[in-house]
Structure formats: structure tokens, C-alpha cells
């Protein structure tokens, strides 16, 4: 009995929280306290879990005492515990941010009261997917988080959200059906759905069947992880959701897909049978994604495209199936969850402060709010991979692994990775130049909030052209802010509505967490190295689940390790 056998609580606590917050649906204060308190408790527990397996040692917990090949197991190893900690830290920050937004806007009886239970169910689903040691339980974890995400995506039921939600739901359901078909086929071929058991039994199948099952699983996970050419649903559906929801989707949901791909590649189908197609997919994901980002003028859409593009880096690290590459990919996943989420949160703040998320309509934010500028600049540069930051370290790790592998395709990916990094810098710099550096007067059709906040007289001609009441009403925020700013110009009032401390605080916290990833990159890389070595070895995982006396089948020497 050690601390790791408390792993099921990482799923149970959020579900319990969902039940409690659903009961408290009319008491928003108690609801907020319960959800934030329980999520913090979950995060604390997961930190203990990570500490327990930090130096190695995989722990399997059999649910209900059923012996593994038949019962359901939850498996805690370094990779899953790292993912749990990062995902819970990020979701806690987003929860505080969303709570702050709800409090600032004072919407008491909007459908937002179902936000808390749904959000906690989403967290439970993510934890379940990360912990699952059983293919079907992984499917259930996916379904829990997807069903919660459908509700969050269409929160409020406005036209654009419903339109985006339809695409999202249909694509997700199709990918789930594909996953279920693969599970059925895997079960038909081997007679088990336990992943450790599968690791042994799949090796005994003939190559053709193995490749078929492998491709089916990769396609199902590829849709969820938004790997090109299965990525087109993502930039279409994410930007319309509310800012905190987009942030948590961008940070977590695609990474769950990447996590499942990592498990498929390392545990179920080791070796390098599909590495070449995966590398080509990674290259195309990086390049096509970032080219899409360059064409966008809306910050949320631009970030969604960079999200797709940077999934390519993780697939690249995974496809090399060497310890160095996989370790860099693990580090990159942790880095990207934090950074992408903080960028979306900052975009939410930009939208409040400047009245729009389109770079054409923004300007002068660096002068209006230097804090906002810093909060955008640090993760922006981090995403682009500018030297001191963790994005740079992760990319260097990947490029090193690529050079070490030394095949022409690996070199092509190294070049593609550098080019993508530069284009990301270009995309981020365009946002910076327009939204932050130029004068507010240079913005096309700026929102009245922006001009009022800039302390400039609202130009009569602009408002005359555009029916001011209509425009102000659209943001819902502009009207009260404008009247307050106009009557006496008390800047504290403007600050408390436009940038409430409860929203800036969690954003700043995430930015600091992103910087902490840079400072503690050494220990983290050590952890990723050990995790990668254990996952490629497969022995610790299989022994932890099935017992010590099982012989682990030898893997065909992974490419890169042979030298």
C-alpha cells in the first residue's frame, strides 16, 4: 500500500465534485468553492503520485480487486503522472479564470451554472484517459471528456457556437466509432483489451493483421490529436467557444490524443513499422498548420492553427522511436499544454480589453496595458522557441534526436521544424506589431472599448458610420464600460470590469508555470528521459500489471537505438 494506490481518486474526486456542484446549482458561491477546492485537492494528490514514481517504478491499481487480464487496471508511470499534474494545474488555472470571468460579468442565471459540473466531468475524463491501462477504459475516458466538451463547446447555444459544435460533435463521434471498431477488431484478434496483455499477444499476430490494427488505432487517435490530414475540424470549431473553454480544449484535448498515440506506438506496437508515414504526417502537420496560421487575422483562429502545427513536433518525436526523441516529445507535450493554454487565456483578456480578437481592429495595447503585453509576449516568444524558454529547449531536443537518427527524412523534418519555428515567430510577431505596438488610431474599425480605454476621444465619424449602440451592444461589455469611463473616467472601475484580478491572476500563474518549465527543464528532461526509456523497454509496465513472472517479448530493435 503506497501513495500510488490512491490513483483512482484522481478520477473519483472530480466526478464527486461534479455531483456536488450540480446539487449546488443555485448557490454559485458554494459551487465555486467546491469546484476549485476539489480540483486543488486532485492536483495535490497527483503531485504526490508523481513524486511516488519520480525515480522509476510503475504502479498498477486493479479496480475492485479483479486480477488484471480480466479486471480494469489504472496504471501510474512517469509519463502518465506528469501528464496528470500538468493537465490538472492547467485546468485549475482555467477554472479560476472562468470563475473570475463569471463573477466580473455577473451572469447569475445564465446557463453558465452548468459550467462547473461539466468542467469537472471533463477533468475526470482526461484523468481517466491518462491513467487507463485498458483499451476499452481508454475509450470510456475519451467519451467522458468528449461528451463534456460537447456541452462546453455549445455553451449558451448562440448561432456560431452551434454551427461549430455540429462539426465538432460529428467529427468526434466518427473518430470514437473508429476507435470502437478498432477495439472490436483488437478483441477479435487477441481476446483481450488489457494493454499490458495486448503488448504480449499482439506480438504473436502476423504482420498484416498487426499493421491493420495499428493503422486503425492511429487514425482514430490522429483525428483527436488533429494530425494532418485529419486536422481540419480543429481551427473550424475551437475559436467560437468561450475563451476559457477554448483554452482548456487547446491545452488538453489534443494532448490526450497524442498521449494515446504514444501508448499505441510504444506499448502496443513497438518497433518502427509505421515510422515513415508518421514522420511524413508530422512534417505536413507542422508546415500546413503554420501556413494556415499566417493567413488568419483573428488571434483565436491563428492560435488554433499554431496548435495544429505544433502537434507535428510531438508526432515527430514519437515517430523516431528513440529514447532521445521520445523524451523530447514528452517534454514538448508538457511545455505545449501550458503555453498554448496561457496564450488562449491572454487572448480572452485581449478580447475584453480591446473589444475584439481580430488583429485588424486592435492597436496600442502595449501602452494601454503593459501587463497584458508582458503576459502575451512571454508565452508568444516561448511558443516560437526563442532561446531561453522551454519551447526552445524542447525543439532543440527534438532536432538533436532527428540529427542523431540521421536518415534523409529525419533531416527533412529537422529543417521543417526550424522553418515552422520561424514562421511561428512571424505569426506571433504580426499579432504583436498590430495589436500591441501600433497606435490605437491605426486600427481599422476599432471597438469603442479600445478607444475609450486609450483615453482618446471616440471619433464621431467612426461611430456615425457604424451605429454605436449596435456595436456596443454586441460586445455586451462596451456600453456600461463606456458610460463609466465617460462619466468621470474612474480608471479603477474600468480596470475591475475589463481586467478583473481573478482573470489576470490565473493567466499570470500559467505564464509563470511556463517559465518554471524553463527553469526546471533539467529535472524535467531527466524525468522524460527515464519515462521514455521505460516506455520503450515496456518491461516495467507489463510487469507492474501482469506480475513479475511474465516474459516480455523482445522488441525488434527500435531505429536509432541500434547504433
Amino acid at each position: 500500500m503506497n501513495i500510488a494506490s490512491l490513483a483512482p481518486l484522481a478520477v473519483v474526486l472530480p466526478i464527486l465534485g461534479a455531483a456536488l456542484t450540480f446539487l449546488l446549482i443555485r448557490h454559485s458561491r458554494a459551487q465555486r468553492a467546491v469546484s476549485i477546492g476539489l480540483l486543488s485537492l486532485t492536483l495535490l494528490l497527483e503531485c504526490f503520485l508523481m513524486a511516488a514514481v519520480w525515480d522509476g517504478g510503475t504502479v498498477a491499481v486493479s479496480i475492485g480487486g479483479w486480477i488484471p487480464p480480466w479486471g480494469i487496471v489504472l496504471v501510474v508511470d512517469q509519463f502518465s503522472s506528469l501528464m496528470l499534474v500538468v493537465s490538472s494545474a492547467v485546468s485549475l488555472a482555467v477554472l479560476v479564470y472562468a470563475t473570475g470571468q463569471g463573477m466580473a460579468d455577473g451572469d447569475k442565471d445564465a446557463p453558465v451554472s452548468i459550467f462547473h459540473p461539466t468542467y469537472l466531468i471533463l477533468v475526470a475524463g482526461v484523468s481517466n484517459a491518462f491513467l487507463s491501462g485498458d483499451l476499452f477504459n481508454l475509450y470510456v475516458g475519451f467519451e467522458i471528456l468528449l461528451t463534456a466538451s460537447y456541452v462546453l463547446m455549445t455553451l449558451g447555444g448562440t448561432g456560431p457556437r452551434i454551427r461549430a459544435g455540429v462539426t465538432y460533435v460529428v467529427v468526434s463521434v466518427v473518430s470514437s466509432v473508429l476507435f470502437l471498431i478498432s477495439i472490436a477488431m483488437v478483441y477479435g484478434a487477441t481476446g483481450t483489451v488489457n494493454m499490458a496483455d495486448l503488448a504480449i499477444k499482439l506480438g504473436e499476430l502476423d504482420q498484416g493483421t498487426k499493421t491493420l490494427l495499428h493503422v486503425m488505432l492511429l487514425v482514430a487517435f490522429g483525428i483527436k490529436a488533429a494530425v494532418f490530414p485529419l486536422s481540419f475540424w480543429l481551427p473550424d470549431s475551437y475559436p467560437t467557444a468561450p475563451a476559457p473553454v477554448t483554452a482548456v480544449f487547446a491545452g488538453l484535448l489534443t494532448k490526450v490524443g497524442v498521449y494515446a498515440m504514444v501508448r499505441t506506438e510504444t506499448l502496443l506496437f513497438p518497433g518502427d513499422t509505421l515510422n515513415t508515414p508518421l514522420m511524413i504526417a508530422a512534417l505536413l502537420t507542422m508546415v500546413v498548420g503554420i501556413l494556415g496560421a499566417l493567413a488568419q487575422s483573428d488571434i483565436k483562429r491563428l492560435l488554433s492553427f499554431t496548435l495544429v502545427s505544433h502537434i507535428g513536433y510531438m508526432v515527430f518525436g514519437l515517430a523516431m522511436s528513440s529514447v532521445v526523441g521520445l523524451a523530447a516529445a514528452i517534454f514538448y507535450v508538457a511545455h505545449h499544454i501550458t503555453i498554448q493554454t496561457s496564450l488562449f487565456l491572454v487572448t480572452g483578456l485581449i478580447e475584453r480589453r480591446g473589444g475584439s480578437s481580430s488583429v485588424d481592429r486592435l492597436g496600442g495595447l502595449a501602452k494601454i496595458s503593459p501587463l497584458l503585453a508582458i503576459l502575451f509576449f512571454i508565452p508568444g516568444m516561448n511558443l516560437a522557441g526563442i532561446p531561453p524558454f522551454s519551447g526552445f529547449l524542447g525543439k532543440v531536443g527534438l532536432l538533436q534526436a532527428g540529427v542523431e537518427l540521421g536518415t534523409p527524412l529525419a533531416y527533412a523534418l529537422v529543417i521543417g521544424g526550424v522553418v515552422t519555428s520561424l514562421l511561428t515567430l512571424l505569426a506571433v510577431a504580426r499579432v504583436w506589431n498590430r495589436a500591441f505596438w501600433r497606435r490605437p488610431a491605426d486600427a481599422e474599425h476599432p471597438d469603442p472599448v479600445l478607444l475609450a480605454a486609450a483615453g482618446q476621444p471616440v471619433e464621431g465619424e467612426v461611430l456615425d458610420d457604424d451605429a454605436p449602440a449596435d456595436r456596443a451592444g454586441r460586445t455586451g461589455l462596451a456600453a456600461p464600460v463606456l458610460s463609466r469611463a465617460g462619466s468621470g473616467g474612474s480608471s479603477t472601475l474600468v480596470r475591475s470590469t475589463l481586467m478583473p484580478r481573478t482573470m489576470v491572476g490565473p493567466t499570470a500563474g500559467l505564464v509563470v508555470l511556463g517559465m518554471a518549465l524553463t527553469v526546471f527543464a533539467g529535472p524535467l528532461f531527466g524525468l522524460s528521459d527515464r519515462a521514455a526509456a521505460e516506455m520503450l523497454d515496456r518491461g516495467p509496465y507489463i510487469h507492474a500489471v501482469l506480475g513479475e513472472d511474465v516474459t516480455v517479448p523482445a522488441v525488434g530493435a527500435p531505429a536509432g537505438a541500434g547504433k
Partner: protein
Amino acid sequence: MSINLALLLVMGALYACGIYLILERSLTRVLLGLMLLANATNLLILATGGYSGLAPMFSKDTAAGDYNDPLPQALILTSIVISFAVTAFMLGIIYRTWVLAREDEIQDDLEDLRVAETPSFDAEDDAEIPAETSEFPLTMLGGDGQDISDHRPGSGDDTSGGREAGARVHGGTATVLAGDREMPTEHAAQEEKPGSPNVKPSPEGGGQ
């Protein structure tokens, strides 16, 4: 013991119809397609259980091989519950689409269309600006007090400024090359200003 061929044929037919239906634009048909796919998958899982056998109720006298495999049925139950929930939710949003748009069709993304129609020329990025608009003009940069610009300070204000690179004079009006067409310099300068005559505001903001 035999394989149930009818179930397999039904499964194939369900998959075929389901795939055909989800390729439609009408949301109700897409929903029906997804339901058919889910049910076909349930049949597939049932088929993976192997030959039919006795109900899996333990009795000492029955050999282990005579039982039916109970696990696929447990998986099917789970998947039925999940597809039920998703179907109910999808019906909800299809109804909402109908209420909002009076249309049972997948709608196009307006922002996508806007981005696709955006010309590759962008006044802010690409225009060759005839007059020096920077707050830190080049003329201030000479370290020894001498200016390093081609023209003297202040000359940007008079007409000679219009003859810089890229700007030409056609019959009295100075023009500037904007993408593949030429436009008068005043228009190019106005491009950036709010309320410019060249910019038609779209409901989403931006404009072209």
C-alpha cells in the same frame, strides 16, 4: 456452432448506409448515419465474441468452452449508453440549429470564407508608403549629426517626397503600386485610417 452470417450481412449493410448518410449535408441524415454506424459497430463487437454458446452462468458441470464470451456484451452495453447520450445531445443541437437558422443543413464558416477572400495585398504590410510616417525618421539616425537619408529633413512634406521608390506620378496624381494595381497615394494613405472610403466594413470587423 456456426457463424451467424445474417448478423454479419446486416452489419455490412448498416455500415454502408451509415457512411452514405454521414456524407450528406442535412443534419438529420448525418445523425441517422451516426446511429447506424454505432449500431453496426455494436454488431461487430458481438461478432468478435466468437461462436454462440451457453449463457455465462457458472455451473460445475459445464466445460469452460461451452460458455458464451460475456465481455463483448458488457462492452456493447457501455457503447449503447454512450451512443444514446450523444444521439440525444445531437438531436438537441439540430433542433437549436433549426430554431436559429430555420435550416437543417451544415452551415459554412463565415470567417473561413472571409479569410479565403482576403486579397494577398495588405495595406499595412505591403503598401509602399510614399511619405515617411515613422515617428523615428531615418534622418535622425546619423551619429555625427549628419543625416543619412536621401533627402533633407522636411522634404517629405513637399511634392518631392512623392517621387521616392515605388511612387510614380501619372498625369498630376501620384500613384503607388499596390499589389498588381496602381492606386493614388491619398487612397493608399487612407487605407489605414478608420472610415476610409476604400474599406467596406464587414459585420465581423476587418474589411477590405
